[in-house]
């Protein structure tokens, strides 16, 4: 490929090749504080390319490729090349990760123990993780929590935090503007802006943590909390995992261990401040 970028995020090394310079330049700027893949050999290859030669220049469209692909992912305009790179990197993890049980969840850590927050898109996973990260918690990741089947520990995957729509302003008030990427307006998921995790999140990304609290947040409701039975937790976590089936018995064992050992709560919240207070209160009550 013409332009190349390599990076390691937590335990996963990536190689991104692109037909265009622009997405690579943005990745270089935003991932400047990250290390290179271990031994120079990335775990996953990502390709951003023009499906037809003229699409490199004429209304350039970025097609996502790599070791693992979905058959009919729609191309993105070049102005959203950074989003294309992030989506393709996430896709490698979602479809190709076999070392860890992958939960679609954000995670923050304090004193070696982690809070995992999972839920549907729009539940506020990324927003809460970013805000907690600005208040002394260590951000472990806003998209995937990696559970090691051998130890039950959660490993960090602190990629760029992907903030959408109203969350951009909410988090923008809490962290320095210098840590933000460009505003990507009008993407298939609405407006998106990426946030660089703070230096400690990157410096300590190889430190795993003990899962201590599992939350199912839901934005847009009056403050409420609810206990969940183990079967509901199990089903919701299997839905939140992209590689549970592929991991076979290891996946089942890791999943049941989380359900058995980690206290869980569903929390509803009307605004970010209310959510953070609930998280802190539940944490202190552990």
């Amino acid at each position: 490929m013409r332009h190349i970028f390599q990076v390691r995020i937590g335990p996963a090394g990536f190689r991104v090749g692109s037909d265009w310079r622009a997405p690579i330049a943005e990745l270089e700027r935003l991932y400047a504080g990250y290390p290179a893949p271990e031994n120079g050999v990335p775990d996953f290859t990502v390709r951003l390319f023009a499906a037809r030669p003229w699409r490199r220049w004429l209304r350039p469209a970025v097609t996502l490729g790599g070791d693992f692909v979905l058959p009919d992912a729609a191309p993105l305009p070049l102005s959203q090349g950074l989003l294309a790179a992030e989506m393709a990197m996430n896709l490698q993890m979602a479809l190709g990760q076999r070392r860890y049980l992958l939960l679609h969840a954000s995670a923050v850590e304090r004193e070696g123990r982690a809070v995992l927050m999972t839920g549907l898109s729009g539940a506020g996973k990324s927003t809460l993780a970013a805000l907690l990260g600005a208040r002394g918690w260590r951000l472990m990741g806003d998209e995937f929590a990696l559970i090691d089947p051998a130890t039950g520990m959660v490993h960090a995957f602190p990629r760029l935090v992907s903030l959408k729509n109203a969350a951009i302003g909410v988090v923008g008030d809490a962290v320095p503007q210098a840590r933000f990427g460009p505003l990507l307006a009008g993407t298939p998921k609405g407006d998106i802006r990426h946030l660089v995790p703070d230096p400690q999140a990157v410096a300590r990304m190889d430190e795993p943590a003990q899962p201590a609290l599992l939350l199912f947040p839901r934005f847009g409701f009056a403050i409420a909390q609810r206990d969940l039975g183990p079967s509901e937790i199990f089903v919701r976590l299997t839905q939140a995992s992209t590689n549970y089936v592929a991991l076979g018995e290891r996946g089942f064992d890791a999943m049941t261990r989380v359900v058995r050992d980690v206290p869980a709560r569903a929390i509803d919240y009307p605004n970010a401040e209310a959510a953070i207070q609930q998280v802190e209160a539940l944490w202190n009550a552990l």
Partner: protein
Amino acid sequence: MERPVSPDAALLARALRDPASLEPLDADGWTALIAMARAEQLIGTLAQRLAGAAMPPAVARILEDARASAADQRRAALWEAEAARRALVGVEAPIVLLKGTAYVAAGLAAGEGRSIGDLDILVPRESLDAVERALLSSGWEWVKPDPYDDAYYRRWMHELPPLIHRERDRMIDVHHTILPLTARITPDPEAMIADSIVLENGLRVLSPEDMICHAAAHLFADGDLAGGMRNLWDIDRLCREFGGRDEDFCLSVYERAHRHGLLTVVRRAFRLARQLYGTPVRAYRSPIRVPLDDRLSDRLYRRRLFARNGWGRPTRRGTRFAFYLRSHWLRMPPAMLARHLWTKWRKGYRPV
């Protein structure tokens, strides 16, 4: 800027053939090798093959994951075969497992590390309706909603339109012969089923000779050589395993292939397997004359088989397209081919 990467997937063939040849690989070389192996669905095989060889820790971890993943796929494939067996208990017909599932069910070296996707089975043509009904009543559903595709499969193909299980999300291909009915070569599926070997659970696998005939037919008489490196690796492993027990195994394969009309195809497969992987195949002068000298045209096939770069990307569009056309040319008579391609084109299908 572009880093120097090995020009094509010959690197992967070399790694599989002779793992010791990899020692001078640098980080970019390993990266290219892994991307090619993934793209050719040979990463589990590569991992198996390189077990214990010297490599950077990052590579060792990637290959360890691939080995674990292959073990999971093996288990899932055997379970899927068992699910089909249970669904077909009431059907009074032999059920023959094909390809990857057959290799692992029979405990063959060709199954080690192999990636296995769909379940492929072969049943007698007269049992097709009963098999279809049994599968549909046990949770399998049609994949292709297109009436043209469905009608095409039923009239001209060697298999039912693919079915998928609605809970396990796994596909099954039910074959009644091994090449499309429109192809010029017409193997004898009744003989294949008659000589198949019964496993402990009542399911069957093809005889060793027919396994080779099927793999070669699939590769050179049907498809456009996609997945060819993996197919030839299967053939290599089968030849080594069966050839180790019977020094005239190749002769048995030629006799069988002759009966199916597949001798030319099998010779092509043997030549290329030898060129890629050093497969110990034997030519014969008597009792039948079967030469295996390299042919000039083999170079063209290798050019197609190795058409992948260090990014795992397909390369050599012209060669690929030529083999795509060839696959259709072999598959159906010209007038029918023209009608078929025109219909698919109007529906928006574009090859390559």
